[in-house]
């Protein structure tokens, strides 16, 4: 089991840090890009760039073709039944969720309605609902977490009573937990609620099919799946999007504008105000191509194996000194490994690891409610992707051991 993607495809991974090979273990925060993604964007800017949707000259038509082509590719990647209308390009996952809370939420949620969130969600899937709850006097409910770091679904049907929307992570960016999303969605639908999947961590790492997930909205970001910064995606069922009012107003999203009002454009452009992230969409298309040619089943399998290896290696080596926050079984989780080591604060741990060229994130990972649940203010988090292999995990273990020297 070595990395399934050639590390040499990723220019950054051949960097040196403090005189050592970089060991990049922070892909849950943002991934690196393969050469082909950089080349594709570069090529776009060199040969094709023009604004989309309005041009009658050759490169503008080609820009349109590449931009809309990326939409189709992204739609195909997540099994969207109608990608042409249902895939909306946003600036990131966060904006995609804000689009839903602002457009769908303001239209469909009334005082007293409930929204069900979870204690393991990312701030990006919490704050928009806190804001709307305050504005519209909604009730927010929270799914808890059991001792195995899984969502506690024991009271789900009860908690669903009166709920209009379940907004839930499809994979935790701290615990790695992959909730049984399809089951949650089914029960939510039976209770008359719609379901939003925060798939920022799912889409990059597991084969994703909106149909089998059973969600009504799905949000994710390119920068976590080998694509560029500056672009994210909202997928939603077409019938919902058709009914939703526009989110941002401006060029491209209108059909007509008069002194006394405007009418909105058709899907998907109704939700894409202003010049969109064109080169970024093209880059995301290339990232999707790279992932598809590797095969998402293979990505998942590799990460599951590597996660098992990491959990075993670390537990064996550090025993009681190490606490891992997340399900023990790799089948139930992604390759996100949050941990506490002795009394070394996570920031100090990250600093120590950095000296060995090992990049991990330390902090609350934008999940303060989860931190409170875990009773910590921060964790150190190593996260794996298709370009990582055992040598990276070994390097992590080696580097962690050095904390002992410093912190006695």
């Amino acid at each position, binding site marked *: 089991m070595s990395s399934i993607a050639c590390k040499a495809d990723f220019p950054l991974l051949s960097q040196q840090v403090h005189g050592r090979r970089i060991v990049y273990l922070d892909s849950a925060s943002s991934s690196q890009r393969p050469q082909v993604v950089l080349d594709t964007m570069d090529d776009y800017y060199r040969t094709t760039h023009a604004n989309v949707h*309005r041009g009658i000259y050759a490169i503008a*038509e080609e820009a*349109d*073709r590449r931009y*809309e082509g990326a939409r189709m590719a992204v739609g195909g990647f997540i099994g969207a039944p109608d990608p*042409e209308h249902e895939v909306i390009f946003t600036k990131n996952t966060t904006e995609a969720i804000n689009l839903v809370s602002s457009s769908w939420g303001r239209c469909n949620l009334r005082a007293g309605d409930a929204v069900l969130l979870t204690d393991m969600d990312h701030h990006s899937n919490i704050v928009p609902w806190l804001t709307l709850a305050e504005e519209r006097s909604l009730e927010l409910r929270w799914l808890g977490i059991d001792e195995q770091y899984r969502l506690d679904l024991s009271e789900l049907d009860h908690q669903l009573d009166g709920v209009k929307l379940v907004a839930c992570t499809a994979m935790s960016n701290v615990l790695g937990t992959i909730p049984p999303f399809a089951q949650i969605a089914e029960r939510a639908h039976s209770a008359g609620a719609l379901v939003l999947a925060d798939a920022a961590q799912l889409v990059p790492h597991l084969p994703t099919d909106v149909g089998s997930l059973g969600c009504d909205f799905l949000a994710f970001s390119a920068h976590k799946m080998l694509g560029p910064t500056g672009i994210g995606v909202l997928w939603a069922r077409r019938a919902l999007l058709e009914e939703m009012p526009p989110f941002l107003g401006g060029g491209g999203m209108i*059909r007509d504008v008069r002194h006394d009002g405007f009418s909105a454009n*058709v899907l998907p452009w109704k939700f894409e105000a202003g010049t969109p992230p064109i080169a970024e969409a093209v880059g995301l298309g290339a990232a999707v191509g790279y992932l598809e040619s590797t095969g998402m089943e293979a990505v998942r399998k590799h990460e599951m194996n590597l996660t098992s290896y990491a959990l075993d290696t670390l537990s064996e080596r550090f025993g009681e000194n190490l606490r891992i926050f997340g399900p023990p079984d790799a089948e139930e989780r992604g390759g996100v490994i949050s941990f506490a080591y002795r009394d070394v604060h996570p920031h100090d741990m990250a600093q120590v690891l950095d000296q060995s060229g090992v990049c991990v994130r330390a902090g609350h990972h934008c999940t303060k409610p989860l931190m409170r649940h875990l009773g910590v203010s921060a964790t150190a988090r190593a996260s794996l992707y298709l370009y990582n292999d055992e040598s990276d995990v070994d390097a992590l273990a080696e580097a962690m051991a050095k904390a002992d020297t410093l912190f006695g």
Partner: protein
Amino acid sequence: MTGLEDLYREIILDHYRSPRNRGELPVPPAHRVEGFNPLCGDEVVLYVELDDGTLSDIRITGQGCSISQSSASLMSAAVKGKSISKVRGLIRTFKAMMSIHETCLGEDSEGASSNGASSDKAAVDLEALGELAALQGVVKFPVRIKCATLSWNALAQSLDEIGAG
């Protein structure tokens, strides 16, 4: 300038300069429908009158490029006095001729895909189209296809709204 002559055929410019069936009809009995291309601002307004299974009269106003306006004019001449089923057939045939690239340009392709236009393509009967075949050159200029189909989509919508055939 190879190719452009293909787009701007004599007959197209003629219909652009002297559009047929220009004007309005009293509503009702006529049915009014708007076609609008938000990307470029082209618009057509159709007034359609049916009489006993026949499209008895049609008038058109609007503004736009030579392709959208001549296509509307050519269409009006082709459908006027025809039976609804003939009109439906003509719409299908015309959209089949135009269907290349249409979807990847992001035009609402409902029509094209649900009535199986693309599979019809091989079978496009240019003769049945008559003068309309002059618009064939448009398919080489994918961006202009939406111009050519604007009035046709509006007509299809009009028939749907009336509930005809």
